[in-house]
């Protein structure tokens, strides 16, 4: 009896005391774990495409709006307090719109870092493919870091050596945290990435980044760095490639679609994002959300801009781009109709007219190649429908005339795309007396506040809240 009892006990105890370890291996079938996610070249390509995907999500009108609100084009937002705070240049850590954008800018950076890390353990990727992927990743990382540093830091040139604080530079895969690098360091990283991109990107790459896109991006950066020679040279490279041409709109409807096609790529677009109405994939929805001129749009233009168009800007009476505006003096509002007439469009992020106008202004600053600059400006004005000679630069135009005209056209061409405020800031760094809605170009608050999450770890330096009105 005792023997049986003890045997029974031994069996019971051993079965209970040593439960199977496999019981605890509940690797969930529905989850994609890191070890399984990235195993092949196709996986890495999918990871790379996801970087474009998130880039398209943040440049769907949101980033463009933030930069317009920092500039001098928009009236105060109608009701959205967080947008009003940007407009007032008084953002705080808890502005969820700004903080959300702050976080989203680093999603592509994380993914690019993951891609580069995966090169270490995913076998069988040809060197050429890896170089192309690395180049595309570098381009996207540069694009995002540059986009972020322009919003969350004072501009390049704010200090003589650019030692003022920029943004964190997370360029290793992981969850390490970083302090803010200086603006000089940020630009060095961006240029380093673009060097890789320019070297290895293909000239043709569908809707994805090309060698031209990298050069065009670097041209813009050099322009802001006041390196006009490099900016002009890079822009010339892109223009001379022959792969881009000005569109030729003739009706108001066609002007409303200028560079905003759906179903194909604009001949002017050097790099942009892609929407697909067939599957309700809209990567431009925020443009229409914010600007839609229905009964009460959230965002309208500053009515003073209409005065600029009609009283200062050249050739507005003939300018087809005036179709983008709807002046409503009774309401005291100026509506931007450019984006809201379409449910879907592909968003241009870098385009030909930018290159032409950067080159033109750079030549103006350099005092050289003015004929080319004049041709660029006139080509854009002509494309806009301006035919009267009086509105076109003649061959005797001075460098100052060229600069003024290039700036004017740049402002018109990029209206609503969030590209004007950085030009104002650049001119500020050049010593011009620039005010943006009655506040200095470099006042506190022009650099938006970082997400509150940045303060979760000790040691992060926030921007001054500002409030420069």
């Amino acid at each position, binding site marked *: 009896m005792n023997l049986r009892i003890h045997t029974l006990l031994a069996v019971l*105890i051993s079965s209970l005391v040593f439960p*199977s370890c496999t019981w605890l291996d509940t690797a*969930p079938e529905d*989850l994609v774990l890191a070890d399984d996610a990235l195993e092949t070249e196709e996986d890495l390509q999918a990871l790379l495409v996801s970087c474009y995907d998130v880039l398209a999500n943040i440049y769907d009108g949101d980033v463009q709006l933030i930069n317009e609100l920092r500039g001098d084009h928009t009236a105060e937002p109608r009701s959205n307090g967080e947008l009003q705070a940007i407009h*007032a240049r008084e953002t705080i850590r808890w502005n969820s719109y700004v903080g959300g954008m702050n976080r989203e800018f*680093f999603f592509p950076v994380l993914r690019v870092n*993951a891609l580069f890390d995966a090169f270490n353990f995913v076998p069988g990727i040809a060197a050429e493919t890896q170089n192309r992927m690395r180049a595309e990743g570098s381009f996207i990382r540069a694009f995002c870091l540059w986009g972020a540093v322009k919003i969350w830091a004072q501009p390049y040139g704010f200090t003589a050596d650019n030692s003022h604080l920029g943004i964190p530079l997370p360029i290793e895969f992981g969850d390490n945290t970083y302090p803010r690098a200086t603006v000089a360091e940020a630009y060095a990283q961006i240029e380093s990435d673009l060097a890789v991109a320019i070297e290895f990107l293909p000239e043709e790459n569908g809707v*994805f980044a090309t060698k031209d896109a990298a050069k065009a991006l670097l041209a813009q950066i050099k322009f802001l760095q006041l390196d006009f020679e490099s900016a002009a040279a890079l822009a010339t490279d892109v223009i001379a490639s022959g792969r881009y041409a000005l569109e030729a709109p003739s009706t108001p409807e066609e002007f409303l679609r200028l560079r905003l096609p759906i179903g194909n790529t604009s001949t002017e677009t050097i790099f942009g994002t892609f929407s697909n109405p067939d599957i309700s994939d809209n990567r431009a929805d925020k443009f229409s959300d914010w600007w839609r001129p229905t009964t009460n749009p959230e965002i309208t233009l500053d009515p003073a801009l209409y005065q600029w168009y009609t009283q200062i800007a050249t050739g507005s009476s003939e300018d087809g781009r005036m179709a983008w505006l709807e002046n409503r003096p009774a309401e005291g509002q100026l509506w931007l109709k450019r984006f809201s007439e379409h449910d879907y469009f592909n968003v241009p992020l870098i385009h030909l007219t930018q290159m032409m106008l950067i080159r033109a202004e750079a030549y103006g600053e350099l005092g050289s190649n003015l004929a080319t600059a004049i041709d660029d400006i006139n080509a854009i004005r002509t494309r806009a429908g301006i035919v009267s000679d009086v509105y076109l630069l003649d061959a005797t135009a001075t460098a100052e005339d060229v600069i003024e005209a290039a700036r004017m056209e740049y402002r018109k061409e990029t209206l609503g795309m969030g590209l004007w405020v950085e030009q104002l800031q650049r001119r500020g760094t050049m010593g011009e007396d620039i005010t943006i809605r009655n506040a200095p170009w470099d006042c506190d608050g022009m650099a938006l506040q970082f997400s509150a999450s940045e303060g*979760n770890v000790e040691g992060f330096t926030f921007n001054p809240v500002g409030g420069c009105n």
Partner: protein
Amino acid sequence: MHATMNATMKQLSLTLALMSLWSLHVLAQGTLNGRVTDENGNGLPSATVVVDGGKGAFTDLDGNYSLTLAPATYKVTYSFIGFFSKTETVQIQNGQTATLNVRLDEDAVMLNESVVIGYGVQRKKEVTGAISTIDSKEITAVRTPSFEAALQGQAAGVQVTQGSGMAGSGSIIRVRGLSSISAGGDPLYVIDGIPITQDYFLGGNQGAMNRNPLASLNPNDIADIQILKDAAATGIYGSRGANGVILITTKRGTRQGVQVSYSSSLGYGEPSARPTMMTTEEYLTIRQEAWENDGGTGYVWLPYLSTASDSPEARRLAYENALKTNTDWFDLMTRRAQKTQQNISFRSGGKWWSMYNGISYDKNESYAVGNAYTRTTLRTNLTLKPLEGLQLDVQANTSQGVNQRVDGGWSGGIGAAMSTALPYMAPYVLDTLYDDEGNIDEVVRDYELDRWGNPYVSLVNQNRLWRETETRNFLTGQLTYTPTTRIDVILSGGLDQSIVVEDNWRGEVLNQFDNNADTRLNWSERTSPNFNFGGNVTYRIQDSDTSSMSLMVGGEAQKFASSGYWASIRNVEGPTYMVPEVRDSIDLYYQNSELTRPEWIEGINPWIDIPTTFASTFARFNYSLRDKYFLQATARVDGSSKFGRNYRFGFFPSVSLGWVVSDEEWFSSSAISFLKVRSSWGRTGNSNIGGDAQYERYADQTMGSTYAGDTIIYPLSPGNPNLRWETVQTVDASVEMGLFQDRVSVELGLYNKMASDVLMNSELPAHTGWAGRFINAGEVLNRGVEFSITSNNLSAGRDFQWKTTGNYNYNYNELVSTGGYTADAISGGTNDSRAVPGAPLTTYYLVPFSHVDAETGLPVYIDINGNETFDYNLEDRRAVGDGLPDHIAGLTNELRYKNWSLSALFTASIGAKIWDSSAKRQLGVVTDWNMRTELFDRWRQPGDEAMFPRLTLDETTYGLPNGFPWWNTSLFMYDASYVRLRNLNLAYNIPMESGDITLRVSGNNLFALTNFMGLDPELVRDFENAQDRNFSGGANYLTAPQERSVIFSINATF
């Protein structure tokens, strides 16, 4: 005294063994009968009746007994576990029947009471851990939305914050403070030995309410509840014992015969408090004043009626039009709720079996119009003893809880009645419709949904049908084999399955602005099975008369899973419980994904949940020396699938000692009849997080995302392969005393709980690209004193009796460290509570408010240097208070006079603060919310001393940042201390020939003494996740008040 009692027990055993021999004799010449009852007059079944000389009997189910005796004078001793024995003298005469009814008094110390502990039972005297016991009477005495709320005030060190008055709402229970940050801080619930599913967030946070996983349990099925508090008690539950363990034992059958119990109740409920919302005239006055303070002229613009840019004349017309309506929205959205409950149970048994059957129906309307929780339960507990030494226990329970949901809080309903529903807006206006000939065709109600979110519309005409149905099935069993008196072998297993189906249907009126659908239905079903099986072996050794020891070794495995799917449906006539074919279609297309779905089924998607498993091995060693020195050691190794391989297993030991000082020969005291000291040390854990925290996860093409026609893969969460158990080291020292012949029992305990490796779901800085991840970083201290007393003040055979029970707990809570993260890294959702090292958990992190400047009427704040300032700067935020009480207490007094009884339970909570987040708009900047009349105490002119500053429509007046109207200042943090009459209970007991009937009227939450400037100082709002639940227990956001109820009931036992 106890030595005497032991001797009595031995004598009783001997006597009972000889009973059968006595029955052979037919010498009886007289009869003694009677009834043995408790102090309430309830019959005590199986009480022992022993006559000097050896003859004895047990009482039956109703406490009746009968003995045949030879004529003589006898001393008869009556005894029952948990009560003082009583001896009476009776004379038996030939051929006559003597009747002797005896009422036994409760023994406050109850040394021989059996106490359920983890994986076993123990004599109370031997218990070396901190355990509180609550019996069924205390659980059912208070009518609550869910049974756990009835624990409030019943046990020292157990803080129960009852949920709002919404039907089925849950409570927050904290045992000896709060140790967890992001992992669940609730105790582990174990029913009949099986840890149950208790996830408050399986249903998310819909309608500003979390689903309560305990609501479907029938309190009438509960026999008693043990709350394990210190490491000695909870250590055997190892990784899941850190927040305490609540052991629930359901009722069992009886030894013989049949006992039927029936109870029925009817009552009503209403809000315990009503908000002080303004009337139209008051609101317009306030708004006009704010407008003028801001420099406005003419009439102020009114939300929904005019705009700031309207002409002065248009604003005037709107103002005058507004004055024509005055809607009391809270009154409109609430009612006097009806409550009804029916219970019937059968307890039966024989020599080899016993059974309990219980059926209940409970319909509990809340005071919110349209809201009710209906629970139907059926339980069978069966015990079989087919062979000597073999026992099989099976418990089966099925219940269905149907919650008719309504919106609340931020989601509308009563919340809207306290915010966005302005008094000048009517629930509807009458529109006259004309036919083609211009005659009045029809007068219809226009709910004006095109202008505003009218909360009334959801409540009428079945415009909104929202039902959540939980079917909960428990099946548990234990097989106990006792081959010898020294060995018990127990195998156990159980299934706890929850199936929740939710229908949320919006009719045409509510859906009129949806361009794609006339009606909409959001439907979901989630099935959550929880399997548990294990066993243990206990080996007892009795070395000598003076010492004994036992060793229990066991193992346990558990698997929890949850799966299901949800569907978006449009253009159907109603929810699936009204239109079953909709459900059929959902199932068809979910199970056959290759079929092309009809357009009205917009989407069907699975819930993706991660199963979790536990595997555990445990042991407990007990040693008893001379029945006065006790040693217990426990050890448990737990493995969990929630943690990475490197840290998958955790070791959780405990050791405890007990010494019955009063049993020492040298001990002598006339006042102290029992004295025991005990102490324990142990380590327990907490793993109450989701199953995916350890994994670095990606999203891939299976989630359907593409860009430009290409599939995408991207990282979702960083994971943490080093994630491990949160551990709590607890030291406990306690004294138990019986005073004045054990008429008074007292327990005093000290504890120190230090939690380390506390699980934190830390938000990562934006530049990492990650949202957040779980880490082990925090340290939390809880240190406290708890005290409980039971005193039979007047008893022992008097018509008038008075018993007092009370408990008290002081707890000090401190977040010692967050591992280098700043206060903002861990927050309580939207509730402005933060993890501030050096301050308690649930700390509110706000800009300190000083006063209203008498000259300007502007708010004055305290900056980070302690100086007064007009500048509102969020960098000046600091810890200003917290939601954890310092002191909690419960006090029950029971008075009895003959068959009448009156009891009153008072509960108290002192030291907690409430952060009234919704007061920012009810008492702050004038916005499009209605406001509270407390705002009348505002500054109006220089020299005014006021509570609130000058009124304004512009947040920048108070220094708030542009576009940031959320005024996070301590102006809206209030003392939440209260003393509440939790329950008042008047009963009359009618003794019957067999059984008894009790008539009862009870009032719950009748009043509260508090300085809180708001609805109710006891509140539980809705939460986003466990971290929010831990941090925001004292935060209010349009939270519905508690319910005050009066219940009439009848209880009959036959």
